[in-house]
């Protein structure tokens, strides 16, 4: 393994905890901006707990460690399958919610936009991966 690979994987280990902390800070800022300080503090504390929890569990769990450093090809595949499944569930929920909104006589928002984003993202991903070969 090259030094660059080692450095990249070492950096990747912090991606999930870093994202959790960043999301927590965003919740805090949004809570303060929207005069919902309780929500902001709760959201920040929750995401901070997630970040600390992930870092604590990684030493005991090969799976969590693998999800963080993305070194193990099998765990990377598991992550891709789980992400695809979660994405499918979200898309199904958006479509169902859109249909319910239309049936209620509404314009379907915000599910129209969410469904469009999902469709465009899927097409863009297919084209990108097709071009890359």
């Amino acid at each position: 393994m090259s030094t660059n690979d080692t450095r990249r994987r070492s950096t990747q280990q912090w991606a999930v905890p870093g994202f959790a902390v960043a999301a927590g800070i965003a919740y805090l800022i949004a809570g303060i901006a929207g005069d919902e300080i309780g929500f902001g503090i709760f959201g920040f504390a929750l995401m901070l707990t997630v970040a600390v929890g992930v870092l604590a569990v990684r030493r005991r769990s090969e799976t969590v460690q693998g999800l963080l450093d993305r070194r193990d090809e099998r765990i990377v595949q598991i992550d891709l399958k789980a992400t695809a499944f979660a994405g499918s569930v979200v898309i199904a929920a958006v479509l169902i919610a859109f249909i319910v909104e239309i049936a209620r006589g509404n314009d379907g928002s915000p599910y129209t936009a969410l469904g469009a984003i999902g469709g465009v993202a899927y097409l863009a991903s297919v084209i990108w991966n097709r071009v890359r070969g």
Partner: protein
Amino acid sequence: MRNRVRALRQERGLSQATLAVALGVSRQTINSIETGRYLPSLPLALAIARHFDLIVEEIFDVDE
């Protein structure tokens, strides 16, 4: 697909954890390969073969 990874590992007195470290994967992955639940990628299959000083065909074979 069947393979001889478990037999080769045991012949050499290696634990799953030791082989996992040598190949840069998790112990769970070695176990999944040995039990046939996971089919390794070509790079990993080559790494396994090189580790045992064999060629891929001597370790992995298609069930017929």
